[in-house]
């Protein structure tokens, strides 16, 4: 039963993920390029007429905006709506569960460390080198990482399986399948269409 459910959720994740190959770029709030950074600083200092230079330099500079903007952009990849569109509702649930186990019980698991580190590092390359990396490969890398994390979370969730846990996974799987077939274009909030 466990194996069957995990297999089913993986198929759902692949079905959700497959739709993303009709995109050609992530939406602009999922990357943070030097152009975005410059535009934000210019936009900010435009309104600072009459302010002391020291204050303007302290609050609106590239170092601060890079740090702050990158963190905000990174959150986009951990957005529950992005994940539910990327690998389905059940996949997103798996990622949340994996994170929970990583923070509570499995903090010494090397595989999880590698996966979570990659999930943080890879979006940074997307942010910084956005125009130079082929989107197909980006998708593939993101897909593999998040699916692996999600499947780990789901399998960990079902280690001590109860009827309630099975019911949750089955209900989320049904919702995911219905969402994939009823709203086939829901990912366009996060990516640009071909």
């Amino acid at each position, binding site marked *: 039963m466990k194996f069957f459910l995990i297999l089913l959720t993986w198929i759902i994740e692949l079905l959700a993920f497959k739709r993303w190959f009709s995109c050609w770029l992530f939406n602009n709030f999922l990357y943070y390029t030097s152009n975005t950074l410059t535009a*934000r600083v210019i936009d900010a200092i435009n309104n600072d007429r009459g302010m002391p230079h020291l204050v303007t330099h302290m609050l609106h500079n590239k170092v601060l905006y890079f740090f702050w903007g990158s963190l905000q952009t990174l959150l*986009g990849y951990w957005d529950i*709506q992005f994940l539910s569109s990327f690998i389905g509702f059940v996949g997103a649930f798996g990622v949340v569960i994996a994170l929970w186990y990583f923070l509570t019980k499995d903090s010494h698991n090397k595989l999880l460390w590698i996966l979570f580190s990659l999930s943080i590092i890879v979006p940074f390359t997307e942010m910084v080198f956005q125009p130079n990396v082929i989107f197909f490969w980006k998708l593939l890398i993101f897909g593999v990482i998040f699916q692996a994390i999600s499947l780990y979370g789901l399998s960990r969730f079902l280690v001590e399986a109860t009827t309630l846990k099975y019911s949750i996974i089955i209900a989320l799987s049904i919702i995911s399948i219905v969402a994939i077939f009823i709203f086939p274009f829901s990912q366009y909030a996060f990516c640009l269409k071909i």
Partner: protein
Amino acid sequence: MHIKSFHFNNKIIILFFTIIIIIGGLLRFADITADPPGLYIDEISIGLNAYDILHTGKDQYGYSYPFAFKSFGDYKMPVYIYLVSFSMILFGKTELAVRFPSALAGTLTIIVIFFLTKKLVENENKMKKHASILALLSAGTLAILPWHIQFSRGGFEVTVALFFYSTGLLLSIIFLKRNRLKYIFLAAIFFALAMYTYHTYRLLSPLIVFIELLYTTKNKKYFKNMLLAFVLFCFLAYPMISFSLTPIGQTRLQETSAFVNNPYPQGIENNLADGIIFFDNYLSFFSLSYLFHTGDQINRHQIANFGLLYLWQLPFITAGIYFLIKKTRNNLLRFSIFILLLIAPIPAAFAVPSPHTLRLLLSAIPFSILTAFGLYHIFTLKKPWGKFIIALTVFFVIAESCYFLDYYFIHYPKTALIDWGGQCKQVAQDIQTESSHYKYIVVDRNSDCIPEYFMFYIPTIPLVYADAEWRQPSTWKNKTFLYVRPFYGNIHPNNLIYNVYLSNTDHDIFVQFLRL
């Protein structure tokens, strides 16, 4: 420096609490008439209705002391408008009067959350001694929370509704500890008041009262009193519930329903799609990007690139959830926080746009308490890097707050001028200046300011609103008059008196004053 080594006596607690209230009050009241930079359309409607109620006992449409104000057809809940009427006794027909109840309720909510947290934590053995510190942390977090500051400074009904609702929660918690009928009766009254203040609470108030009733079913002593309070609540809420079932009462729901976007008109697909739309909308309120970065992108609800919560809160909210689940044995505490967090987006998930920051404001309470929880537990971890974490947190709290304040007080009045109707305020002020020179003033209807703006700002100056077919009346006997028209691209047209430049970032020309 370890938080557990602090021995706060009552005087120090009161001192810190006073400082937090003063800071919270300042952030909500400072420069409130100029920032946000004008009254937006709903505030204008509230102000006009409140003024009419105060002086004539009737609303804009001539209804005596109405139960719901028709306004622009959205049928506003009554409590906020009546509060503004009282406020107008003190401050007259001004922007301050329109925003005062909201700012005051926002400040009072800081006091309520202090006692709410204190009462919730008092039962927890491990934290009992430090209940006041936790309460200070959550009150402090709410006091500087961008989300709550934003809504407290505008004339938003939701801020007052949140105050009533959180007071109801506080009284409910006190009832669950002391089992006195008066507390739960008062709670029922406050929950009912919240229903009469803002639309989303028409669902949230009955929901919480019903949950409380279910919570007490196991204990007969509590259940008996709770049942009486439930009956009182039903009695108080009955007019609103019956109103909500009428076609007029459902106007707001129909206007904002999320299900109009359902691509399937009927059949099982329609029901399934409705379910998915609701589920997707509900999840959108827990989106990290939404909470910490983009917000709902409505300029009146936020400053650009700044979410509802500070980024520094993220690790502490995560830690707060962890400690609440793993380390707390106090079921009431756990239950209250998670129930609030889970029910807050329910009414908003039925509506568009989603996520919507205004409709989610109730979540500010559990997020503030969770942040306080996370802060407390991380600061009390006996780790060698403890001091470093505290120093880093203080640095980020100060840095992000400074950033928010700079954006809010320096940039926001310029970038959000048009979203708040600041341009119409500017035109009204200019018309007032010019009015002494002209007997007749004509305003072009295409100038993007509805007549209500002028009725609020310059009610004594008679204006003629002109459409394309308007001609100068013969009774004016070729006298010159002031003509206010939109900017059509010619900076120096004939008969120009002056262009009205906006005080926004781009200094756009909004209208032109002509002498005709």
